């Protein structure tokens, strides 16, 4: 192809410089690359290379990490102007376990994370308390604490309510599309009706799904402390899955599937379905006759945060029935604060109608049907989670 004369003396000299160029550049880069281990070691010493750190020192800023769609803008704005605290609010808490895995590397080494307040579900809060990653709340500065609903006072994993304050509570029951099912549903066993094969949804939230099935078998979930005691439910769920009864395990995404008709029925949370039942009269929510699970999300104060005063102010603010009512009108879950019903009536209009909604203010009969889980020991919980994971497909 190309014929060129081989190197002339002049180009040899030039080439020498050429190679040297490369070598120098390469050598410099190499030396630069060598400093990387030192860089790594230095990185190890840093804390918080993540998003803006707001926590730590001072009394006028607050970072609250919450679930998506779980707080209205107005309440945040009103809080900031009333208290003078500047609040950073993000909604990156999508899943208890995933968030736990995110913060574990830092918290387990005694470092701190950016958010001051998180909103874990009760069982995750129990785990955080057990691991010592949360601080005792500054209760002295939260006088509205007395407004906590009586049935929520004192938990087995936090006897004096020292570490947590409930944020919202809810019910897990069954939601169904009556147009697809063709009949009304009443019981947990309806979920296993072969007529609905491939059109049943269940939650990825283990305690709600397994809890309902256990209640369907006549068990009391508060008494379940070992995996063996619950294995009957796991077996039933495994069987239903392998027979194709269950279409998928979902998070909050069952809502659209339900209204679209992909699900005939699914295990569902009361707050999600409230609005849906108004938009689509075919969709109904029931607490099964064997019982439904009662759960709650909490607010906890992360260890290492030094914003005691803003934390107290915020929690106090939320436990004022007026603010709690506004929040309830937005998220449409059951408030842990006493006196919300009256406040909603005072707000008038659609909000007053919410005061009469049995899903937001269950009557005594419904309440009697609800059961909640106790705390599970670490190794038992691991067995529960593993078994559930292998069924839900992991």
């Amino acid at each position, binding site marked *: 192809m190309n014929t060129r004369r081989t190197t002339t003396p002049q180009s*040899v000299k030039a080439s020498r410089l050429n190679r040297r160029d*490369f070598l120098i550049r390469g*050598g410099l880069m190499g030396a630069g*690359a*060598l400093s*990387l281990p030192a860089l790594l070691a230095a990185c190890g010493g840093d804390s918080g290379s993540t998003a803006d750190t707001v926590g730590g020192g001072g009394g006028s800023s607050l970072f609250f990490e919450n679930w998506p769609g779980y707080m209205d803008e107005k309440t945040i704005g009103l809080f900031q102007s009333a208290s003078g605290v500047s609040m950073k609010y993000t909604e990156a808490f999508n899943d208890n376990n995933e968030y736990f*895995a995110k913060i574990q*590397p830092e918290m387990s080494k005694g470092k701190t994370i950016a958010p001051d307040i998180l909103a874990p579900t009760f069982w995750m809060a129990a785990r955080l308390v057990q691991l010592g990653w949360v601080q005792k709340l500054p209760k002295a500065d939260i006088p509205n604490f007395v407004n906590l609903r009586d049935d929520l006072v004192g938990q087995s994993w936090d006897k004096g309510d020292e570490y947590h304050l409930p944020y919202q509570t809810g019910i897990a029951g069954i939601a169904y599309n009556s147009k697809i099912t063709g009949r009304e549903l009443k019981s947990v066993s309806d979920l296993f009706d072969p007529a609905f094969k491939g059109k049943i949804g269940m939650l990825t939230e283990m305690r709600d799904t397994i809890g309902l099935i256990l209640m369907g078998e006549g068990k009391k979930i508060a008494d379940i402390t070992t995996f063996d005691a619950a294995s009957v439910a796991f077996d039933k769920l495994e069987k239903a899955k392998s027979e194709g009864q269950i279409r998928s395990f979902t998070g909050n995404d069952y809502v659209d599937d339900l209204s679209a008709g992909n699900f005939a029925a699914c295990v569902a949370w009361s707050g999600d379905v409230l609005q849906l039942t108004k938009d689509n009269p075919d969709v109904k929510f029931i607490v099964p006759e064997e019982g439904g699970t009662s759960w709650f999300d909490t607010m906890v104060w992360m260890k290492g945060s030094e914003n005691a005063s803003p934390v107290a102010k915020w929690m106090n603010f939320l436990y004022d029935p007026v603010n709690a009512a506004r929040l309830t009108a937005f998220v449409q879950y059951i408030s842990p604060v006493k006196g919300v019903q009256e406040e909603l009536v005072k707000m008038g209009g659609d909000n007053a109608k919410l005061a009469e909604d049995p899903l937001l203010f269950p009557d005594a009969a419904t309440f009697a049907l609800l059961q909640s889980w106790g705390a599970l020991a*670490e190794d038992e919980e691991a067995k529960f989670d593993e078994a559930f994971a292998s069924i839900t*497909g992991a």
Partner: protein
Amino acid sequence: MSLSSRPENVGLGVMLGLGLGAVALAAQWVKGPSALLVAVAMLAMAIGLIFTAFAGGLEARKSLAPYGLLKPGIIWLCLFFLAPLWSMVVMSLSSKTGRFDFFPDFTWNFENYRIALTKFRPQFIRSFSYAGIATLLTVVIGYPLAYFIAFRGGKYRNILLGLVVVPFFTSYLIRTLAWNNILADEGPVVSLINTLHLSGIFESLNIMQNGKLMNTPAAVIGGLTYNFLPFMVLPIYVSLEKIDVRLVDAAMDLYSSASQAFRKVVLPLSLPGLFAGGLLVFIPAAGDFVNAQFLGNPQTTMIGNSIQDQFLRQLNYPVASAMSFVLMIIITIIVLIYTKFMGTEDLA
């Protein structure tokens, strides 16, 4: 340019030394003062190399040049590819004292591997079969496209290649989610199938299940095929493009039909591209979890979902590492067989 021996050995030795040192430091084979010693030794090697380059004359420099160029990149890879793999192996042989023991001790615990190979065998098998089917599908769909661009593209070649790559510029997740819209129960595809009364055929082929296309193995495989199609088209194109068109013409003169010319001339010459594309599709597909998560159901979980679950949900780092390592080993064996077969040059 071939190089003379001794300086080259120095360059090779230094590169190996630096790479090894990097891994040693990152993976904590040595700690404390010994680590400092290793770092100093590495620095000494680098300086020695530069010195040799300057002092050794032209030949030396010619020999050492490539090693100089390679050093930064190779060191980076040693630090952040080899060292992590070492960490993973160590973790896979460790055991935890409790669920929330985040710093397991190394105990030569092979139990993790037993769990990985028995409890998750269905997922391993399923992953490799899904990936295999997806790879075959990418060949079927991608080969004609690559052929067209290589032989019929003309001056539009670059534009067409660009078009193949463009879907890549939307997010992987969004592309997968879009199939949710397309294959939804009340969406266009299912409606079309129902109007054409083809649902019976699809059900018997297990492409549809209970009248739905979403949340089926077919949806997962379809997602894998779609997402990795460009990885098959581009390598095939590269090897087709190298074929001298005159060879094809000569073949046409020799054989009686175009299809024979294709089979005897074009196809064999495009084999390197096919094999390269095959690897580039099969391997990421086998380890994927996004498609199974968004498009599948509890029966379609792949090994990627399991590893993710063990790592992030069960917090069982030892078992997760064992599973990753098994996956890696199986795939490395495949890659080694391939490279022995085809030679490493042609992979590009």
